[in-house]
């Protein structure tokens, strides 16, 4: 073949390639969407397939999980149970491949607690991390908070805090906080202490923002709790609702819930909010 001809054939092939690519891509796209989520093999199979590249496979799996989450976190209502199950499975395999890797525990805890309400899943990841990362005081600290705040298991939470306090670099106030949990005192105050510590420890601007809103909501709840206590002292009976606090002149107005909900007085006398301390989701699409 003469050079002129081969050049023409090459140009023709490149043009053809460019022409068919969108159709090829169109057919690959749905396939890739399925693959992106479902290609997580059981940990023992992954260990075999990864050969000597276990740490880098763990890095890759984690990067994929965080990118998948990050890419869709701007519309959290579009998340389904399957998405979270996939994420949990991904983090579980990642931590089997490298149980010393800090990011999956930290990321799993941030997502599965407040956003999803799957505290047991977050805790099972954290427990694995506490066992492997024997020098890390933050993981038992997070675990303690989850048990205290979400599961109301104060004694177990206090045990975790004591474990954290024995590890190097832990906050000095952990034993005092643990003692407070053992005695089941001041629930909201304890939660504020935890969240202030989380905020102090956090560098990611997005997560800092989340903690800041949560902390503000808890501070407002504590403000109302204290007003209720003053009301009881004054009238020797509990208020019927929060409006009673305003009417009796104890507070000038009921603070707003930063999550957009409304604070109310629960039957057991505790302060709750209609937002359940989570940003509003779109119920139609859920």
């Amino acid at each position: 073949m003469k050079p002129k001809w081969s050049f023409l054939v090459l140009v023709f092939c490149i043009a053809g390639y460019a022409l068919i690519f969108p159709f090829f891509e169109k057919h690959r796209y749905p396939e890739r969407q399925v693959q992106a989520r479902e290609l997580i093999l059981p940990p023992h199979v992954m260990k075999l397939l990864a050969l000597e590249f276990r740490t880098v496979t763990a890095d890759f799996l984690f990067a994929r999980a965080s990118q998948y989450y990050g890419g869709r976190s701007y519309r959290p209502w579009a998340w389904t149970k399957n998405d979270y199950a996939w994420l949990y499975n991904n983090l579980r395999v990642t931590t089997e491949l490298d149980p010393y890797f800090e990011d999956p525990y930290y990321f799993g805890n941030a997502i599965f607690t407040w956003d999803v309400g799957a505290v047991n899943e977050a805790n099972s990841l954290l427990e694995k991390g506490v066992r492997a990362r024997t020098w890390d005081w933050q993981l038992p600290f997070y675990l303690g908070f989850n048990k205290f705040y979400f599961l109301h298991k104060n004694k177990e939470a206090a045990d975790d805090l004591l474990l954290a306090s024995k590890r190097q670099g832990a906050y000095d106030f952990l034993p005092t906080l643990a003692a407070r949990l053992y005695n089941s005192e001041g629930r909201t105050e304890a939660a504020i202490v935890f969240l202030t510590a989380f905020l102090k420890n956090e560098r990611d601007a997005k997560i800092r923002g989340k903690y800041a809103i949560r902390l503000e909501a808890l501070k407002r709840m504590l403000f109302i709790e204290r007003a209720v206590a003053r009301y009881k002292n004054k009238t020797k009976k509990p208020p019927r609702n929060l409006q009673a606090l305003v009417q009796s002149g104890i507070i000038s107005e009921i603070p707003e819930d930063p999550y957009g909900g409304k604070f109310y007085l629960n039957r057991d006398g505790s302060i709750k909010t209609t937002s359940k301390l989570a940003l509003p989701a779109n119920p139609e699409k859920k």
Partner: protein
Amino acid sequence: MNGILSLAVITFKEGIRNRALFGIFIMALLAFALTVIMTSLFMRDIVRIAASLSLTTISFSGLLMVIFIGTNLLSKDIDKRTIYMVLSRPVSRAEYIVGKFLGLCFLAAASIAFLGIISSIPVFITGIGYQNSMAIFNWNVYFIAVLFIALKLMLIVSVIMFWSSVTSTSFISLILTIAVYIIGSTNEVVKGFLDQKIEGMNITPLMTAVIKCVYYIFPNLSAFDLKLQAANGLSLAHGYVLWTSLYWVLYVAIMVSAAALMMERREFP
């Protein structure tokens, strides 16, 4: 002895001149540069990521180097019949094998030393750029991991020597070496399954015996993989380096002497 050394030096020089080596080095250097960018995808354990990616790059580049350049260098002598010229000199076949082995080991050691030093740059840079109080990192363990990558590659070189001495073409010895590498990298995990007795996994007594045999016969390459320890700054158990090195010495010695034995009995057309 002089014959062995001069053969080793010739093999080393031949390897260094190989253009594929430059390609592998360029790929490794690009990967080291990418490491710093890749760490931005992660949240806290940044130095761990940099160390994990750097060690993986060293190991992968080293594997490409010994498997492709190693099999090529050795089998070329047999394929192109240049071995006749070497063996017509006062060099025994065993000396030829030992000389070739040492030359390839020099090549692996020099390349890994070079890559090991360069790889510490991205790890060092990320360490300065991101301080994480919960991360521990130990340069000693990092460089022991680099050393163990070099040992692993030399062990693979000894396997290449063995296969090249029994097979007639470089392609077959390449395939067999890759098979040994895959078995060697997984046999410890498989034996772990056997010891743990995973639920729903029924292993017959025959299979158990086969797995045990494979574990003892094939090299345990997982023992030379210290990426997990180096990336996470974990200290090594007392005596680990000593016993693993002894295992390495004996395994390599068995492979090279078996290769020498096979070579002595081999008939060239």
